[in-house]
């Protein structure tokens, strides 16, 4: 199939199933937030759309045919996504982790039976997966997870607490990193695919400092998992987790493109002018700085530079935007005069600190850049 034929089919499908956006760039909404607060309606709309897309043959363009993929090069996927952006379709946010991280991990590490059970289903959004990695005691130091998995014949019993899980309340399966031995660091962990509806799994919303609750805590209390649902070797979970995080970094819509909607510089310029502070030399200077760094970030994503560098730049840009907004709004940022797009920025400002932590702290990113891109030695840990 030539790229032209492919694009033609994609265009036909989209014309038949979605409306064109009236303007490509949408106005900022009433809420200005960095975190997707997926209501169950929004999740449902995303799932329905993904099913439609999948059944039309555009839901897993690069995936293997045996699980419903098209086996086409990644350039075809980019072409489809570029077309799709012209249409008004449900957000992909609620399924990013499921399709971008959980699915490829299952595909790479599960037994054939488990793959047959889940892979197609996850990509068609019949099922949703979530990621059970972080714990209260294991943040930057993921290898220190304490959730235990104890062998019991052909099954394992899991006990522990996971935190900062997105989408746990609507997920069917979870990728759980557990401790299975007292052995050496990085050689004592095992990964399981956990049924999120199993007895002993409890999901609680986790309210963050912005006031809303877009993440979960997940308690695992004697959850029984079949050994056949193990991913990778016993005590080989660290390698699986690293692969999952690798998928995260290459996932389209991953961390590096977060905040893209808020960092639309043309909208920002228009807003600053409407606010009447485009003439402030400090605002202009800061806008120029932010414009440069946001534009560079976009270009760096295209050239596939180091993803940790992209994450660092993203968080520093969000911080800079927070400073610019503070300068532009003054007291209107901290108390509500009832005017459009003024106090609404306060939720954004409160969310920025979370972006510096989630998906790897600034410090971990700097370590990664220094070691991978510059070849500097690892620290003695």
């Amino acid at each position, binding site marked *: 199939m030539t790229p032209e034929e492919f694009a033609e089919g994609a265009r036909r499908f989209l014309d038949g199933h979605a409306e064109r956006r009236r303007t490509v760039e949408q106005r900022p909404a009433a809420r200005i937030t960095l975190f997707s607060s997926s209501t169950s309606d929004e999740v449902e709309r995303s799932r329905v759309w993904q099913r439609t897309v999948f059944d039309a043959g555009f839901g897993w363009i690069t995936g293997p045919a045996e699980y419903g993929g098209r086996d086409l090069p990644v350039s075809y996927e980019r072409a489809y996504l570029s077309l799709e952006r012209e249409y008004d379709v449900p957000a992909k946010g609620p399924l990013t982790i499921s399709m971008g991280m959980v699915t490829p991990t299952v595909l790479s590490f599960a037994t054939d039976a488990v793959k047959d059970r889940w892979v197609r289903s996850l990509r068609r959004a019949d099922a949703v997966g979530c990621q059970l990695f972080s714990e209260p005691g294991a943040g930057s130091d993921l290898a220190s997870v304490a959730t235990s998995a104890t062998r019991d014949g052909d099954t394992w019993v899991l006990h522990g607490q996971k935190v900062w899980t997105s989408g746990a309340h609507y997920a069917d399966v979870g990728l759980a990193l557990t401790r299975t031995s007292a052995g050496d660091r990085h050689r004592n962990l095992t990964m399981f695919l956990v049924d999120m509806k199993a007895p002993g799994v409890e999901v609680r919303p986790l309210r963050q400092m912005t006031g809303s609750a877009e993440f979960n805590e997940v308690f695992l209390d004697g959850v029984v998992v079949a050994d056949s649902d193990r991913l990778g070797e016993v005590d080989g979970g660290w390698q699986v987790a690293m692969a999952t995080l690798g998928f995260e970094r290459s996932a389209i819509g991953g961390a590096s493109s977060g905040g893209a909607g808020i960092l639309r510089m043309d909208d920002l310029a228009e807003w600053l002018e409407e606010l009447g502070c485009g003439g402030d030399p400090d605002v202009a200077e800061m806008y120029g700085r932010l414009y440069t760094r946001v534009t560079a970030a976009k270009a760096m994503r295209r050239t596939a530079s180091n993803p940790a560098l992209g994450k660092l730049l993203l968080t520093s840009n969000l911080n800079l935007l927070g400073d610019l907004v503070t300068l532009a709004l003054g007291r209107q940022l901290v108390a509500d005069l009832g005017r459009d797009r003024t106090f609404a920025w306060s939720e954004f400002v409160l969310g920025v600190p979370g972006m510096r932590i989630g998906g790897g702290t600034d410090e971990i990113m700097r370590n990664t850049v220094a070691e991978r891109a510059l070849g500097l030695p690892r620290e003695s*840990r």
Partner: protein
Amino acid sequence: MSVADELREVVRRSLAGAADRRRFLADEDRPAQIDADLWQLLSGDIGVAGLLIPEELGGGGGTFGELAVVLAEAGAVLAPVPVLSTAGFAVPLLRSAGTPAADAILRRIAAGGVTAAVAWCDDRQPESASFVLDGAAPGVMLAVAGDELWAVEATRIEPMRTLDLTRGMAEVDFVRTEALGRPNTDLTLVSLAAEQVGLAGRILDDAVAYAKVRQQFGRPIGSFQAVKHKLADLLLEVEIGRAALDLAVEAADAYLDTGDADGLRTAAPMVAGHCGEMATLVARESLHVFGGIGFTWEHDAHLYYRRAKADEVLLGHPAGHRRRLAVERGLFGAQRSPSS
């Protein structure tokens, strides 16, 4: 033990014995509340509201240095009491206005239990203001319009939704009832800075304590240079704030004693230009040191961050204060700048 140290101890004990401040937080349904019992204790029994009021008006006859101690202590725990608006803003404005009418109001405040709020008016709207701190139900309402301090009577009060959940702001319409004289508004910059120094010092202490015990990679995170150097840099900013505050407090006391405002004209924009950004920086970076737990609603780090952001813009942007400082020090050209 100095008077200031004794006062610090008394205030600290009272604050430590107070009800859980989370009970008074703003939420979806209501604005931030005042802890009336605590305010009665502090303002009435301990005399915090009247601290800076001369003894002959029923006050404590204290110094600005003592007031700064109280404001810093209250700021350190984000106490849900109107101490900044009443003791930090209204009283210094009234004292510096220095008219019999102002003195009469000072007598009322000195008795304790009263909340005094100050409306800062735009030149074009001398009978309405937004962002009035603790303005929801004050016993005394004042307004600064142009160079003049006024006693006013509110005709409409509307609490505002606020970023800072620990302290309310209101939109107020009012009629001016009595001119009270010309106040020295620089004093309020020093009061605000005292609060900022107090809150920044406390959240930094908490972050340092956490960095000593939180383990990652088999050692306390405070042993990693990335964390320890950050905390050292933050301490430097706090110490600059403390030094600038000491100088500003000295200048404020000199002004109150002698009427000579020269020192204050430099020291007030100096401390305001530094402490606004310093408190936000320290609160933000401390929050970062707390990591994931700091990003949760239950952790108090965000309350400090919210207060710091609100304080940063309350009385003008830090950059504007720094430009004014430059003008006061002889960069006359700086007056032509559009944002100074």
